[in-house]
């Protein structure tokens, strides 16, 4: 290993240790020895930044950075909920329609019911929480496969969205747009800060709460956790509720950013969220996953979109590139074993 490499890796390890020391207890779902691959996303991140710096002069403007950050808020929040579910060994395919449902409900409550903003937001969150609770109940109570249950609700909730409104709803209350979209701190808007705080809360939840540790353990061996005297069902239910809430929050912020809620919103969002978790080191089937890694995955996917947009690359190529990144992430891990 050259001195330069050694220096670089020590910076990564140092940064991670600092983050860890904030929360005392390991960054990941399954804490233990960290290896280079756990920081590989940081390398990919730096590489993308380098490409950006050399190829686009617009990239480093405050406007673009702010745009980039606002764009990753949606996937960031969805991925966070997805991570909790993946860590238990499950999956939540229904997050896309939940995003649409909460977006359209919050808009409808503001525009048609003229409810005050906080009430509308709470109702929309409640809708997401309910959707998650339904998924979690079916999965934990009847021991159904998460893939099947959420595949069913993926369709059913989308149907409910159209039942609620077949046409887009535009909330005309200007404060709904500005409150989340106005820059507060440099390029940071409230929506970005909400996402960042959500990540910190999740880091705390996973590492420092009994429920978080139980959820991580369930993904590794559900029966062992049950025999340790932990209520497994309740924790699985909780994981899906968290996922529903995160998706709903993403939907609210997305409606605020776009200024319009379409019933077709969020198609395919579940795939980006799963991708972010996997790039960040989550193992489908449970037994591994990392909050910081997922954040890295979200940023990388966001960077790809943003950069290729700036460079005027057609979106088909973006999809190809994203697919390759996902494969690379999984391949790199496989080699590491």
């Amino acid at each position, binding site marked *: 290993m050259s001195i330069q490499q050694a220096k670089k890796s020590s910076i990564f390890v140092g940064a991670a240790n600092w983050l860890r020391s904030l929360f005392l207890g390991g960054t990941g779902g399954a*804490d233990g*020895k960290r290896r280079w691959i756990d920081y590989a996303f940081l390398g990919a991140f730096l590489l993308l930044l380098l490409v950006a710096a050399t190829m686009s002069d617009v990239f480093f403007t405050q406007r673009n950075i702010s745009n980039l950050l606002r764009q990753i808020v949606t996937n960031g929040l969805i991925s966070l909920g997805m991570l909790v579910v993946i860590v238990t060994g499950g999956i939540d395919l229904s997050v896309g329609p939940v995003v649409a449902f909460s977006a359209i409900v919050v808009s409808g409550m503001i525009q048609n019911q003229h409810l005050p903003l906080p009430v509308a937001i709470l109702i929309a969150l409640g809708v997401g929480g309910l959707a998650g609770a339904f998924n979690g109940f079916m999965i934990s109570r009847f021991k159904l496969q998460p893939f099947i249950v959420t595949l069913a609700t993926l369709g059913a909730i989308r149907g409910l969205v159209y039942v609620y409104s077949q046409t887009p709803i535009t909330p005309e209350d200007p404060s709904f747009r500005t409150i989340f979209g106005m820059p507060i701190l440099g390029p940071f808007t409230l929506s970005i800060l909400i996402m960042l705080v959500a990540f910190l809360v999740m880091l705390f939840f996973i590492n420092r709460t*009994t429920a978080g*540790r139980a959820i*991580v353990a369930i993904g*590794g061996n559900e029966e062992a956790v049950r025999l340790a*005297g932990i209520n497994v069902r309740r924790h699985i239910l909780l994981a899906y509720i968290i996922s529903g809430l995160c998706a709903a929050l993403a939907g609210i912020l997305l409606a605020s950013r776009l200024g319009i809620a379409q019933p077709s919103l969020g198609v395919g969002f579940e795939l980006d969220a799963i991708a972010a978790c996997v790039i960040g080191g989550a193992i489908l089937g449970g037994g591994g996953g990392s909050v910081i890694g997922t954040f890295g995955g979200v940023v990388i996917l966001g960077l790809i979109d943003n950069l290729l947009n700036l460079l005027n690359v057609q979106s088909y190529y973006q999809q190809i590139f994203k697919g390759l990144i996902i494969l690379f992430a999984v391949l790199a891990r496989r080699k590491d074993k």
Partner: protein
Amino acid sequence: MAETDFLVMRGIRKSFDGTQALKGVDFSARLGEVHAIVGENGAGKSTLMKVLAGALRRDAGEILMDGTPVVINSPFAAHRLGIRAVYQEFSLVRHLSITENILLGQMPTRRLKWLVDWKLAHQQAAQKLAEIGFTGLNVRTQVARLSVSQQQMVEIAKAAVTRPRIWILDEPSAVLSQEELKRLFELIQRLKQESALILYISHRLEEVFEVADRITVLKDGELIGTVKPGEADQNQLIKMMVGRDLGELFPRRQPNLGEEALAVRDFSRAGSFEKVSFSLRRGEIVGLFGLVGSGRTQVARCIFGADPPSAGELRLEGKPVRPRSPRDAVRAGIAFLTEDRKRDGLVMSCSIRDNASLATMNQVSRLGVLNVRKRDARVQEKVSELSIHPAQINRLVRQLSGGNQQKVILAKWLLSEARVLILDEPTRGVDVATKVEIYRLISDLADRGVGILLISSELPEILGMSDRALVMREGALTGEFPRAQASEERLLACASGVVQ
């Protein structure tokens, strides 16, 4: 032919991540012998066997068969040379039938090559099973429905299809009852007469002395020596394995019995066991012996609330309790170490810290938020108390040896400060030195007033540890023996239904 060494392994070296598992082992064996390989966990016996079976690649050394060097770089290459290994973890396809598993990849076909001749297939499979002395099973049965020992027989029958010359049996007896063990030994004798070489790995020295023609001892990746069963006794062998005298295997203790800790009355679960009644006092170690399938584990699971009993009462320290879930049982002060640590004892993907604190997180948290400092301190204390190695609590349990994994589970239940401890095969797949440590620990716990129910299929363990021994057979409690009256013959007779 039988007197010359058929298999010669010379200067075998293998290291993992810098630790040398094999430091140049010279091993040889003949056809027509049962050659046992013993050693503590981590001594390198499994590694050596995996090198031979092609599951691991050696770093250095050569392997000769019948005097000619052979290339073994994959399990497939080993198969073609007539080397077959039966590991503790089976390689069966659980949702397929016995027939399909035994004939996997070589199902007989009809004239049209893509049509399976099922009738012939079932016949062939039944024949293969009969050849190894195993009858009375419908070959159409799904493997998932078989007991562990039956699965092992299928695994052996599957390997026997290719008529291997070298058999590697890795801890074949760990899952077997006494009766099944007898059948396995008969099978081994038959293979031996067909002049196969049987390499037999086991922790159970009694068995090794019974079945082996020669015994090779490995320690820390080196071959210590090869002896014949007549030349050494168990104690000498143990000394070779651990390099020191262990002293007494079982601790001597004066039981100090207190109040009733646990009482079970007319406990039943449909299809598993019926009308089981016994009691357990504080400070008492009660051994529960029974063959596999006798229902002993099911009784334990029902006491612990893991399965619901269909009838019966449970009293804990005089008060009636009815645990509906393991959670209720843990809260009531019952702990349960399960027999299969990989299946339901440990979360392999988690750290020592997470595993050891799993049952007691609410003791180190407030409103669901963990006090990680307190948790870590408590876990660290148990890790040093039980001398778990490595002593780093953020190590994944997957990276630990079997003995240390077992200690992590013990740490989990020690932290829960349970007053009734149910131990189901606590020393399965654990090396001798750790066994001794676990026995001392059990004895200490009893001395501190914990009531202990020790379930085991190892008679010496039951006899050496229990103040009182219970015997189960076919779902019923068939005998109770105070320490003075318990003997190997009596317990075995009682467990197998032989009238004395």
